[in-house]
């Protein structure tokens, strides 16, 4: 079944088409969400939400962008919403903590290790993922889509509505910031390791 046919069948609410969409895309969506939010359970929830949203809005889908760009865009938006919500909760928890109530216990998952990282690189990857969390939002998205999901710059540009040049510059700045962050990390921890 080609993409156009799949979209038509999805718009007709055909269950087999929906199953095909989920089975064909679940790993890509999950991996993207996992790279962005670095939390396995939340990434699975987001993956489910992406398919629910996709099915609900398939009627409005225009074939201007491919189904892949559309699904990735929904995933990025949902993941960013989730991160912002988490940040707000953390801030609220901090306020409660200052006021002496029990708050600020939001799990930030400091030792996230992506399950697809090679065994001998796990330690370095955990440090890198921690540095990725400190990147500005757009840089974090672009870097994660490029390095974790392995998307080319042109595709990232379509997802973020940016030119390829803008994505390249985002990635460049992300790498510079990561380098700075990692250098300072290793300088501060040189005697421990």
């Amino acid at each position, binding site marked *: 079944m080609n993409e156009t046919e799949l979209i038509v069948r999805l718009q007709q609410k055909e269950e087999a088409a929906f199953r095909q969409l989920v089975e064909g895309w679940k*790993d890509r969506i*999950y991996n993207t969400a996992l790279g962005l939010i670095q939390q396995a359970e939340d990434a*699975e929830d987001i993956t*489910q939400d992406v398919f*629910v949203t996709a099915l609900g809005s398939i009627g409005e889908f225009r074939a201007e962008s491919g189904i892949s760009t559309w699904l990735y865009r929904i995933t990025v938006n949902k993941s960013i919403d989730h991160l912002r919500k988490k940040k707000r909760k953390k801030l609220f928890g901090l306020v409660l903590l200052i006021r002496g109530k029990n708050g600020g216990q939001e799990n930030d998952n400091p030792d996230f290790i992506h399950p*697809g*990282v090679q065994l001998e690189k796990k330690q*370095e990857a955990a440090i890198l993922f921690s540095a990725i969390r400190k990147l500005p939002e757009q840089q974090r998205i672009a870097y994660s889509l490029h390095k974790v999901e392995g998307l080319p710059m042109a595709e990232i540009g379509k997802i973020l509505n940016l030119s390829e040049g803008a994505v390249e510059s985002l990635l460049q700045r992300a790498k510079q910031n990561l*380098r700075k962050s990692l250098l300072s990390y*290793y300088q501060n921890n040189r005697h421990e390791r």
Partner: protein
Amino acid sequence: MKDKGDIESKTDAALNSLDGLQRAAASPFLYTKVQVKLKEDRSAWSALGRFISQPKVAISVCLILLLLNTWILLSVISSRVDERAEQLNDLALEYHFETPALPEQNPIQP
């Protein structure tokens, strides 16, 4: 110097640690979980939520609320103006501040 070189190489190793990364796999039961979520999503409250969150519905409700507020504000202001005018009239009556009639304005001097 050796220390600096060591830090640089560790930094490079960390930056390259995602090379050759394998894609993480979602749960094999994801389709079933999505189906459950879809059934939950079809409940009455979520249907109401979806209806209200439609941009045209949300904008219309906002406009209606804005018009209602404006109408209430205007009617309160006008009722206050009426009340004030009434009070002034009462005061004028009590102290005989009525506008004098024309013959009174030019009384004939003896």
